[in-house]
């Protein structure tokens, strides 16, 4: 179980290292505009093949690259209904504060839980290796966070139920 997680993260790390080759590219259609080509998808020659890396039926990662931007969409593991709700709320909390993260996208791509958009400007200001480390660390920490949240919810529920039923 842990070994497939390690392999999954290694695969994503290698793919990101290869795919994160971004350069500035002003918009071809409109003068003086500079847009992330992966979002607009207007010119096929500026896009690379999107890559979908699945660990199993529930977890997957979509990496789409273009000449000046890279979009990473993640779907995290959600074993039951409670984890579903916790993941949705937690990731929505993070997405709403996307400015603080800089590389986060405010809305996840359709079919996924959270998305990152990395542009050439981010690669110029921030280090490429550190960006990749951040994303891989994020994926590891998300699973831990959701398990912790689930455990705290069940602990709190148990305490509340014990206190309430003491009176009977």
């Amino acid at each position, binding site marked *: 179980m842990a070994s*497939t997680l390690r*392999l*999954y993260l*290694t*695969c994503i790390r*290698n*793919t990101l*290292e*290869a*795919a994160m*080759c971004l350069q500035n590219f002003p918009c071809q259609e409109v003068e003086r505009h500079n847009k992330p080509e992966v979002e607009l998808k207007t010119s*096929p*020659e500026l*896009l*690379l*093949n999107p*890559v*979908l*890396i*699945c*660990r*199993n*039926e529930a977890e*997957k990662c979509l990496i789409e*690259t273009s000449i000046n931007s890279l979009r990473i969409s993640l779907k995290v593991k959600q074993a039951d209904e409670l984890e579903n709700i916790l993941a949705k709320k937690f990731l929505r909390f993070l997405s709403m504060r996307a400015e603080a993260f800089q590389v986060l996208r405010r809305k996840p791509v359709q079919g996924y839980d959270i998305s990152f958009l990395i542009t050439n400007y981010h690669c110029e200001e921030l280090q490429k290796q550190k960006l990749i480390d951040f994303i891989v660390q994020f994926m590891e920490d998300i699973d831990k966070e959701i398990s912790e949240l689930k455990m705290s919810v069940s602990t709190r529920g148990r305490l509340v139920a014990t206190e309430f039923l003491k009176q009977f």
Partner: protein
Amino acid sequence: MMAGAEKFVEADNAEAIITRIEHKSRKIESLLKQNKPVEALKTALEGSSHMIRDERCKSANWIVVHRALMAIKDVEGMFSSLDPEYYDILMKYLYRGLSTGDRPTCDQCLRIHEKLTERAGLGCILRSLADTLFFHDSYFQIRVAVTWVIWSPIWLFYLG
């Protein structure tokens, strides 16, 4: 117009390619029975660089490659006998396997992907990402060839 003519020729070729794939799958089954998974994988990967366009050929070949990939138990041993010319094609098929979402396929593909990246490097990954249909389009290739033909004598003259 050129692309249309190519598609017409490709349709005839597709039938020939699918027949070839069926022959390959019989050969691969016999190789797997003889316990030679690496030869089976080599047979499966041969000739796949020509079928960039037709979706049916790609799917048919994927089934055959998938069969050979799942039969491999010793990944290190496989790489010691696989020629480097197959690395790029293998990487493309690994990504196709990873996109299926089927747990045993993904486990096997992730295992092979790690070792293949160690062997072939990041360039292999980038070549599989960059191999889009746009760069195989005949119109694009004619433009590239014409540009090269026009400009190379000028540069050679300039460089003396």
